[in-house]
């Protein structure tokens, strides 16, 4: 499962990479080889692509200069398909299992990437077949594979639902990161926390609208015992991401209470959405507004209670002290 999800990430990353780099490839093959060389410099296929970018490239320029000679021959293949990055890695001195599997050339992709592609294609058939193996089989067929390739998916419909959830979460994270960047560049105003949460949850739930008819089936699949750990993990990463971009940097119990509150809001709003028949789900968004207001009110009430409590305690201490003075207990003889 973890491998599948890593593959989903990797697959998407590579596809995104190819779409970005495809443009400069035509005009500056040098540039693409450098960037490909740079990517190859990352020791591992999956996460390094994303996580090694921010650190200064000075540490990897030595790598990419070294690999540039290597890549020059392989640049001749016109396709900028970076699913071939896996094969490029196979050309490096270290022996990875991909190298030894015998698959070479630019078109090679890992099993996880293939699964991700099939599941993404299968999503179109969900309104027709529901969240089931038939949808996955139809998806495989549109990619030109036989429907027997559904044998790859041990978890069946669960795989499809989890893949969809992962996709939605990453889309949301992209949107939030983009907004965050806009705010940091000063091109947009930062929103109040309640508004930010409302917008984030609304954006995320709107991604379910195309599949809303069959969403109850998906939710029941997620509640199957063997899917619960994964669905909880996705939910917790979703909520953590939303709070992070909302600006939460707490390192005490607030970390837990905030996430618990948002999880409650998200789950109840999702359930309301399933029953909602108003135009454009207005009732759902109103419900969401009210729940967020509740939480905000509760937070401010808690603060008020705390400060009232402190004031009362101080008052009592003052009264006790006065009493002691009056009765003469405070004097030292």
């Amino acid at each position, binding site marked *: 499962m973890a491998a599948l*999800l*890593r593959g*989903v*990430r990797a697959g*998407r*990353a590579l596809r*995104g*990479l190819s779409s*970005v*780099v495809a443009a*400069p490839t035509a005009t*500056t093959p*040098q*540039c*693409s080889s*450098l*960037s490909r060389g*740079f990517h190859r410099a990352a*020791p*591992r296929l*999956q*996460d*390094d*692509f*994303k*996580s*090694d*970018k*921010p*650190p200064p*490239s000075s540490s990897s*320029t030595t790598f*990419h*200069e070294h690999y540039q000679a290597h890549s020059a021959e392989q640049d001749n293949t016109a396709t900028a398909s970076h699913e071939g990055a896996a094969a490029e890695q196979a050309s490096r001195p270290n022996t990875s299992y991909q190298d030894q599997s015998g698959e070479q050339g630019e078109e090679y992709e890992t099993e996880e990437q293939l699964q991700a592609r099939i599941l993404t294609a299968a999503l179109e058939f969900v309104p027709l077949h529901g969240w089931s193996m038939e949808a996955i089989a139809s998806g495989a067929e549109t990619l030109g594979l036989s429907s027997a390739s559904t044998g790859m998916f041990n978890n069946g419909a669960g795989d499809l639902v989890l893949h969809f959830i*992962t996709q939605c*979460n*990453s889309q949301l*994270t*992209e949107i939030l*990161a*983009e907004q*965050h*960047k806009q705010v*940091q560049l000063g091109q947009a105003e930062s929103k109040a926390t309640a508004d930010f949460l409302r917008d984030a949850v609304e954006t995320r739930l709107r991604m379910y609208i195309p599949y809303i008819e069959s969403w109850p089936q998906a939710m029941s699949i997620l509640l199957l015992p063997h899917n619960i750990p994964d669905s909880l*993990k*996705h939910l917790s*990463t979703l909520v*953590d991401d939303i709070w*992070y971009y909302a600006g939460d*940097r*707490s*390192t*005490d*119990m607030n*970390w*837990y209470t905030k996430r618990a509150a948002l999880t409650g809001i998200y789950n109840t709003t999702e359930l309301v959405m399933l029953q909602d028949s108003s135009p454009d789900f207005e009732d759902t968004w109103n419900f969401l507004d009210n729940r967020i207001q509740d939480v905000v009110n509760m937070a401010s009430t808690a603060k008020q209670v705390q400060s009232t409590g402190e004031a009362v305690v101080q008052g009592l201490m003052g009264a006790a002290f006065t009493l002691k003075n009056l009765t003469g207990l405070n004097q030292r003889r």
Partner: protein
Amino acid sequence: MQRAAHTAVCVVAPAMIRRCLKCRVPLQVNSRAYSVVPTPRDSEEKDMLDRILRVDHAGEYGANRIYAGQMAVLGRSRTGPLIQQMWDQEKKHLQKFNEILAENRVRPTALLPFWNVAGFVLGASTALLGKEGAMACTVAVEESISEHYNSQIRALMEKDPERYTELLQVIKEFRDEEMEHHDTGLEHDAETVPGYWLLKNAIQLGCRAAIYVSERV
């Protein structure tokens, strides 16, 4: 050529950063030039760093509360200023770890309220045994913490000293200050408290259990 590489990276980087999916690696949206903890390469490293930072944060939080308990009892005595000084250094440590945790999106331990109360009670009850009791508690706790920091330093050095230089620097600095507190405690007659051996070992056992639990919960 390097600039071309850099621009190629810049073109691709934002898309790549955003496509960092549920792998729980923090998105470097702040991209500060200097940060104490390097970006984890994979979820295994992230888990390891999370555990280290979580338990260190819990430790400093607990130490803070212990000194608060001691001050509550001995604050107005002669040892007050000394304890206050050590407490201020612990506050600085806690602040540093708060920053690191927030920056790296590390989950704080769920047992913080428990350490809050337990630390205060430990500090206050040992302080009730007098100045020597408070110093004995300090010696025991600081020794535990120093040992713990040392083992973390060893672990990080074994893995990759260059990658973790800043983090190692921070931990070493804090470990040195904890050792100072330990030595201060010894100087101020910690060993003269009755039942020193028992008290010290009981506290250290508690600390070890706390460290074990805070790494995981």
